[in-house]
């Protein structure tokens, strides 16, 4: 998993039906000093995070498993809110 900062939101009315009701956030992957790591991406939110939150997220096939009931077509899902980083 990696760290990310939630920067904004994306709405899409016409989309894969499995993404219905899933919040899509604009998220910037960051390192422990909040320096950006690569480009901002769109991540599906599985823990009701909000804009501005520091989160951790999972990429790849495991991202489809972030929602217990259905498997969503996502390759990046936010799975945790970071309260504190101890480095």
């Amino acid at each position, binding site marked *: 998993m990696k760290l990310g900062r939630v920067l904004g939101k994306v709405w899409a009315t016409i989309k894969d039906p499995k993404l219905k009701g899933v919040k899509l956030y604009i998220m910037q992957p960051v390192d*422990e000093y909040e320096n950006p*790591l690569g480009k901002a991406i769109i991540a599906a939110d599985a823990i009701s995070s909000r804009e501005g939150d520091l989160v951790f997220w999972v990429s790849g096939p495991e991202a489809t498993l972030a929602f217990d009931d259905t498997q969503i077509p996502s390759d990046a899902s936010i799975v*945790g809110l970071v309260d504190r980083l101890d480095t």
Partner: protein
Amino acid sequence: MILCKVIGSIVSTIKHDCYKSTKLMLVRPISPKEEIRKGTIVAVDTVGAGKGEIVLVASEGRSASELLEFKCRMPMRSVIIGIVDTISLKSGSAA
């Protein structure tokens, strides 16, 4: 697996159920010559790794769920599965 150095830990109360009662560490990939690389990773610790230690990180979900004996697969990838004692690198260029 990849070699990483533990640089810290994360406190997170709101998270997916599969992360409940897991220890979340912050690690940075390192080269076999122990040069720290970019790309901070959040990894679940299963072996009691501490800050500054060099560890072995597996980055694939199936192994994560098997390691933590979860029935179903989980939205989790990076797991610390070992603490490295020594690295002996024969000659040759290891990127």
